[in-house]
């Protein structure tokens, strides 16, 4: 009997040791990989507070040399930056809200097998993920709809993403039990009610995820605003404004035979600080979104 006990203890200890070894391995792997992910940002931050001369010579790696904050001062001194920040926030918020309304409605509706035309509509939406018309046709459409130089051209065209739709539809299909919805139907609930009272409360993780995808996608992109917002300079989103800031500093109009008057701009340092300035806000949002990734929302939802 004693032998059995020690054997059992041995197995238990070795199991515990194995668990700890695995834990250590996981932690190490994650730490190493996270380091590789954050080091480039540390490098960029170091560049943004260093002396331009060293940055130009590519001598800055992780430690800044000749620390100064002139680039950041330049960014904050520019009043139009605040305005473009405001534009970006409004655009991103509206874009995300509209996108989520469209995506949730269509994702739910197209999981209902009784819906006639369901396959066709799903196919049409998916089709748009692989076929694009090009910059000129898109521009012509914006022109015809008179949306150029307005808020709408940044908010509407891309707000319904086929990719996000498909992910959400799949998530609804796999994580919301059909029996739950059936019992609601039997109880006489209409689809609006089912969507708002059952599906949405149970789908917090995926809603948080897709909202994040929409918000980040809209925040980072500026190539549409680049061509759609021409005359109304005050309507430029932050990323576009920063793009211009860096471009203006590096522009080699010297080749055109006329030199630039005005103080020396610091293109390399400015570029780095613009990246930090534009990325920080959106990066900070994720920790707040994380709280929706809570397990166990399904306990007790389905009864007999």
């Amino acid at each position, binding site marked *: 009997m004693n032998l059995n006990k020690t054997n059992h203890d041995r197995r238990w200890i070795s199991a515990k040791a194995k668990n700890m070894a695995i834990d250590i391995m996981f932690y190490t792997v994650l*730490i190493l990989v996270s380091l590789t992910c954050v080091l480039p940002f540390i490098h960029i931050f170091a560049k943004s507070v260093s002396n331009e001369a060293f940055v130009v010579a590519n001598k800055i790696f992780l430690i800044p040399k000749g620390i100064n904050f002139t680039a950041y001062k330049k960014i904050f001194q520019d009043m139009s930056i605040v305005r473009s920040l405001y534009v970006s926030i409004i655009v991103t918020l509206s874009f995300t809200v509209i996108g989520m309304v469209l995506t949730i409605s269509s994702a739910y509706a197209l999981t209902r097998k009784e819906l006639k035309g369901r396959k066709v509509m799903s196919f049409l939406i998916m089709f748009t993920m692989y076929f694009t018309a090009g910059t000129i046709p898109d521009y012509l459409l914006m022109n015809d709809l008179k949306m150029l130089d307005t808020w709408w051209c940044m908010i509407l065209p891309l707000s319904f993403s086929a990719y996000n739709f498909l992910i959400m539809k799949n998530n609804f299909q796999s994580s919301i039990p059909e029996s739950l919805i059936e019992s609601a139907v039997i109880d006489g609930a209409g689809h609006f009610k089912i969507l708002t009272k059952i599906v949405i409360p149970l789908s917090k993780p995926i809603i948080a995820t897709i909202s994040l995808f929409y918000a980040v996608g809209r925040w980072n992109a500026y190539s549409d605003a680049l061509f759609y917002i021409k005359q109304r300079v005050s309507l430029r989103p932050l990323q576009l404004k920063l793009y211009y800031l860096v471009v203006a500093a590096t522009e080699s109009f010297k080749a055109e035979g006329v030199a630039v008057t005005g103080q020396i701009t610091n293109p390399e340092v400015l570029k780095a600080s613009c990246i930090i300035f534009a990325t920080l806000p959106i990066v900070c949002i994720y920790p707040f979104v994380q709280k929706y990734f809570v397990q166990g929302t399904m306990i007790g939802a389905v009864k007999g």
Partner: protein
Amino acid sequence: MKRSKTPAAAALYPQNKPHSIGWYLRRDWQLYVLMVLPMLFVLVFKFLPYTGLSIAFKDYKVAKGYAGSKWVGLDIFEKVFKKRDFGQAVYNTLLLNVLDLIFGFPMPIILALILNNIKSKYFKKITQTLLYLPHFLSWIIIGGIAYSMFSLSNGVVNALIQNMGHSPVPFLQANGWWLFSYVLIGVWQSMGWGTIIYLAAITGVNSELYEAARVDGAGRWKQCIHVTIPCIRSTIVTLLIMNMGKLMGGSFERVFALCNAKATQYTTTIPVLVYRWGIGDGKFSEATALGLFQSVIGLILVLAADRIAKKLGEDGLI
């Protein structure tokens, strides 16, 4: 997801009885209302511009517009397929995307599973935030950093290697190594952001299932295999099918930022050609034709993958 066999379900899903469209509209009007706006968006913002795809069949002159340009049928396609770089581009595109699929697709899944096993909330939060940082860097920036790290004469990594007594490695300046670096950097850039979707799916897993598995004596590994993975299987399959359609596509910026004039074997891809002919040269007809070719192949692949998935019992994409 199997269709329920309860009598109520049978009443909900009548078998092949002919009904008028009005009957369906009346029964499911709420669902149709839900679909009105999304379909409107899709039709207006996506399908209306598709008339521009006609450029691929015309000798497009920008000032003449779609209608004013002469119809040439498949001439443009013929020209595109005969171009010197076309064959190489198709091969390279497939190669790069397949490699991405093999090495890049599983990484977020593995990371998500590892993260799921971490108990400390703070560690998890911090790590996740750090992991997805590369997603926010544009490829131009990444390219610049990659070259300052990996270049033969001035790169930091090669300086370290030389210090250790070995000869420098042409990470980006020899063809084979370039391929390796391209895939590695691509995986690095996207893996953190990719974990988000899997983590969202994992939190949807009923914790009672884990309890049951633990009671049955399953260790962490077995729990992972038998509980976690099956529950996120449909997410994995969905993303896999979607990525199938991107096999003929790919990112132009990624190749452009990492390419150089020395290691050129793998750097001509279809997006590169679309850029070179479209934006570089203003040959919109060729660029659109190539884009159409890409899209059609992508669609065929997606539909094929979808059908295979459905045959294997999965839900499929549409």
